[in-house]
């Protein structure tokens, strides 16, 4: 798809450079087909506002949080030697 074809989308979604936008707006004033395309696609895009935002079920969130708790605990136990080993090392070196 050429860049010319995708300008409409960049315009509708506010992803156009300011200079590009000025040029596009100028063209929009003189090209009724382009204006119809913008309005049509904008209208379809507007329908997405009806899409529901869904939260995951509570038990799923809880199980992820539990996993995070246990995983971190395991990682810390694996990587951090117990305090008495550190004390013993200091005594031996000392």
């Amino acid at each position, binding site marked *: 798809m050429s860049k010319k074809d995708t300008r409409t989308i*960049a315009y509708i979604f506010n992803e156009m450079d300011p200079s590009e936008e000025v040029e596009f707006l100028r063209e929009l004033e003189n090209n009724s087909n382009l204006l119809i395309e913008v309005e049509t696609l904008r209208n379809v895009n507007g329908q*997405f506002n009806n*899409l*529901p935002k869904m939260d995951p079920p509570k038990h799923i969130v809880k199980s992820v949080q539990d996993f995070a*708790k246990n995983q*971190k605990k395991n990682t810390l136990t694996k990587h951090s030697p117990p305090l008495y080993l550190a004390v013993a090392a200091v005594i031996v070196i000392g």
Partner: protein
Amino acid sequence: MKLNNADHIPPSYQQMKDRELVHLFRKKDDQVAFRELMNRHQAKVYSYIFSMIQNRETANDIFQETFTKVITKMDDTYNEQGKWIAWVMRIAHNATIDHIRKQKRFVDVTSSYDKESKTDFYERLPDEDSIGQQEKLELDESTASLLKHISNLPEEQRTVVMLRHYYEMPFKEIAELTDVSINTALGRMRYALINLRKMFDEEHEKESNSV
């Protein structure tokens, strides 16, 4: 860290940036920080997965799989310079696409082509899945119809639409996530909107013919 009230998150956490919360969780095992991160982003991630799959059970599995990977890989593969949620969305997206592709692999496309509706099994499958889900979610008619049409879009177009809608992801990031140029990502959105428009028109035509 032990919490007295599992649901309470102090306001100070709510004011922190994602990267500060990630840092607290990674370095100090701060579970409240992790919970705040989830609170902020779980609906976007879950909605994206659900809108792609349109099946509650599978969406639950993929959501869990995503966050299991996030937790186990955060120390090794997440670079704190990048946006955490973009990294999470990449994991969610990959898991979702993996699932869709695995599902497709089990089906013989040619034998399941329906001449009457001019659709193959893949195109019909999400519809069948989504009917039950829509009932459970008690969606109004127009939303259910919109979801049905979205599920009939080709996977790459659906991906762009959903990443943009639920995550408000810039097209540059969508392009990076899906390994295409920005122009291709913009083009996919354009085709998606044109296709949806056609589907709505066909639906209206059918409705007016049946009256």
